């Protein structure tokens, strides 16, 4: 229980997102290009963090589908910044033991000759700690 409270506080600090401001309009979710690949959607991230139900979020792959495209942040009328929160959840997972989603050794298998460096660097930054 305490762990959850602590992690929730940590998420709030990392993201700077004020989840209590959310009025549940779902504009973030309506704007999300990665919607179909997520089990939990942006408004649910906000709601689950706000209500302390983060264990499900941490266990889900949803955070890794986020493209950090910031459409939700741009359009949120309540300035909640869901993308920042999702990134915080992702980092919270990665900072745990065995939380990495992409290992440097796997990289040669997934890249091709044309893939720009920034894709590899960015993916490693996003999926590995």
């Amino acid at each position, binding site marked *: 229980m305490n762990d959850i409270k602590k992690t929730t506080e940590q998420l709030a600090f990392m993201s700077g997102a004020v989840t209590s*401001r959310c*009025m*549940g*309009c*779902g*504009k*973030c*979710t*309506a*704007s*999300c290009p990665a*919607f*179909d690949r997520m089990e939990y*959607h942006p*408004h649910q991230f906000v709601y689950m963090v706000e209500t302390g139900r983060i264990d499900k979020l941490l266990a889900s792959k949803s955070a890794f589908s986020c493209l950090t495209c910031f*459409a939700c942040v*741009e*359009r949120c*009328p*309540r*300035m909640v910044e869901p993308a920042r929160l999702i990134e915080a959840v992702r980092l919270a997972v990665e900072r745990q033991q065995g939380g990495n989603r992409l290992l440097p050794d796997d990289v040669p298998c997934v890249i091709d000759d044309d893939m720009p460096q920034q894709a590899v660097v960015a993916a490693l930054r996003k999926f590995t700690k």
Partner: protein
Amino acid sequence: MQKIGVFVCWCGSNIAATVDVRKLVEAAKHEPGVVYAADYQYMCSASGQQLIKDAVANYGLTGVVVCSCSPRMHEATFRKAAQSAGLNPYMLEIANIREHCSWIHKDVESATEKAVILMRAAVAKVNLNVSLTAGKSAVVKRALVIGGGIAGIQSALDIAEAGYNVDIVEKKPTIGGKMAQLDKTFPTLDCAACILTPKMVEAASDERIRIYSYSEVESVSGFVGNFTVKIRKKSRFVEEDLCTGCGLCAEKCPSRKTGNEFNLGMDKRGAVYIPFAQAVPKLAVIDPAACLHFKTGKCGLCAKNCQAKAINFDKKDEIVEEKYGAIVVATGFNPIDPSPFGELGYSRYPDVITSLELERIMNAAGPTGGVLLRPSDKAHPKKIVFVQCVGSRGLRGCDKPYCSKICCMYTAKHAMLIREKYPDTEVSVFYIDVRTPGKNFDEFYRRAVEQYGVHYIKGQVGKVAENAGKLVVHGSDLIMNEQVEIEADLVVLAVAIEPDESARKLATMLTASMDTNDFFTEAHPKLRPVESPTAGVFLSGVCQGPKDIPETVSQASAAAAKVVGLLSKDQLTCNPCVAHSDELLCNGCSACEKVCPYGAITYQDKEVNDHGKREVRRLAFVNEAVCQGCGACTVACPSGAMDLKGFTNRQIMAEVDAICR
């Protein structure tokens, strides 16, 4: 020496839970001048007030301190009680231990300590209080209503009906306001024009009502009962007493490029025009920015065709000055411009419109003659999407933090009317919450869903985009936990409403306060909702906060009742806390006169007896009926002759001393 009674109110648990009232009573007993101290659960109740009256009688009190809520709340109540006990009402002071103490502190010990200090300051002040007698001032028996929408019209009609003269100042060429632009009204679906235009005509024909249309308030001075207002009558370039409103000029005008304001720019009007067929007063007006005569010096077709010879290109603005006893503010609202919400595409796609635009499209006198045709290609839309809360309840710069209150209901109305008239249309509404508090409101909304099959989707729209000529609405359906895409023919935005931009300027002129959203503040949010804190200024309609037509009309009538109550008095009791100059100290330097915002100070030569020495001196003299008691002069006075009754230098110093003790 005063004999002071201190009364401590518990305010139920509001005060007693944080301030130790017994301790406060004990502390009060040791203050100089205090002969009696008591506490009671609700001092403002009848038995609480009786406590004061009894103590005044039994202990021969000469002064009273009540430790309770803010003096802005109950000072008048307690002063009345003191008066009925035979005490001068100004021998009573309040120590505000609720708003300034118990409500903002949590720790009982330190809150009690603060309450004791606040009590001490009040006791110290009362020790120096003297009886004050209020003067009287006459009441001008005419009211001014600023704004000629339904709020202003209703207030004016009610004031006139009570037998008082009233003027309406409306900045547009016609009265009627926003309601005149509406098609039907919820929840009864009666036609707006059918219920409004008779009222407009009634206002115009009532001999007690004078309408200054196309006019604006230029300046306001004076005070309750006696305001002086300058009104600018903007030039129509048409002689008002000659124009018959036949409309021939508008027909002949060759300029056709200006958007018709009444139809929100969806069709064009001439440079000379009559706003709409039922306009009151029905007079033509020339828009000099569009008129060829003003631009090129040529044309003049309107003048040539006017049989009444009413066109006068040289007509100038006129300023009239009037006196009023009371002022009603009814400046109304405007829908916000949704262009900053770029994702909704209002400024890019002609078929994304606002609800007020839809209202004009649906109206028989509108740009399409009441046939539902979309702006881009004048086709009949089959799929219509409504988007709620556009700009309401948001926190970004372009958002309004409040609920605009009327949108849920008018959207239900629009959806219902469209489905009724065009059963082949499919109507969807994206909503966050449906808010329907009002008589027959929820039933109305349910009818839209159950009887008319309007599709309500709980979720917001992320983006409206045109793809290969089709508008696509991307939204979320939170109940299904799905994203939805709807190819729409018409998208209607329920945009937030905001106070008219003229309100801010007017508030400054009236010294009436406003909240951070530019809505006028009421004297008390619950108990004095139609009065502004500035005496003699009353509030009617949306200028005070979002409201629908029934609420606006009730508030308008309530404001009128308050105005009538004021105008029915021949004299008003003035504020006795006015400036006063000590003859023996005054040296007639004029410093006070220069800072007085009301011109209340004049100079007279008067013979004084200065310690046996008789001489004629030039002395400041305060007109107590004009002085409003701000105290600017007291500080400007170099000799210390000027002082403010009820807030004397000695009283305030005593409070300072008590606080710093």
